[in-house]
């Protein structure tokens, strides 16, 4: 594996297939950690519409993933972030990390999803069943989660 595999796409992704792609035929992987973020149906939500900044978004994801790759001894890393209109229950984002050691895989996975929340140019608009629309606001708790990693925690 030459390095992280980054994708921004409208299409769904398949956790099983992506995980198999990282581990198939290899005998040096001790742990494979994953996180899948899904669209919840809070407060009568009908859909999430995800917008991104083509070009910059991919660059930001490459940069975050390269940082994880440098910080932990990973043997594989896949990040897929969907854009477009997603209904409740749909998967939005996948982070998958493989390493010889479980702690590296688990930590890199948590690091990546925390940074994705705060440092990748995506914006979510909520569409509700009653016709209302609302742009999701950034959360202070997400900034705090990402900042943990900067302080070397």
């Amino acid at each position: 594996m030459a390095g992280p595999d980054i994708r921004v796409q409208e299409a769904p992704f398949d956790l099983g297939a992506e995980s198999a792609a990282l581990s198939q035929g290899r005998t040096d992987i001790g742990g494979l950690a994953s996180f899948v973020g899904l669209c919840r149906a809070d407060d009568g939500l009908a859909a999430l519409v995800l917008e991104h900044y083509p070009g910059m978004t991919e660059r930001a994801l490459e940069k975050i993933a390269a940082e994880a790759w440098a910080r932990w001894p990973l043997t594989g890393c896949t990040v897929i972030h969907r854009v477009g209109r997603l209904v409740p229950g749909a998967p939005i984002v996948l982070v998958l990390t493989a390493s010889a050691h479980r702690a590296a895989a688990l930590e890199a996975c948590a690091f990546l999803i925390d940074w994705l929340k705060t440092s990748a140019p995506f914006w979510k608009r909520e569409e509700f069943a009653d016709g209302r629309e609302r742009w999701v606001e950034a959360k202070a708790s997400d900034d705090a989660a990402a900042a943990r990693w900067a302080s070397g925690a």
Partner: protein
Amino acid sequence: MKLLYFAWVRQKVGLAEEEIGLPEDVRDVAGLVAFLATRSPGHAAAFADPRQIRAAVNQDFAKPDQAVAAGDEVAFFPPVTGG
């Protein structure tokens, strides 16, 4: 200068992107925000509270004091909410 707008900044401005001639006295991101706020009622609404706005210059996040030049691609958007 190529300008891009995302999320509610795009909706309020009423444009996803535009080309502008950069006034000589606009030297940084903060100055560009102040200038853009005068272009139209939509721009004024979008840039009414600069604290709500984030920027990128040539596809890197940029602070208000970052320098801008005529050939740059500059984007304005709300704080990001991916993941």
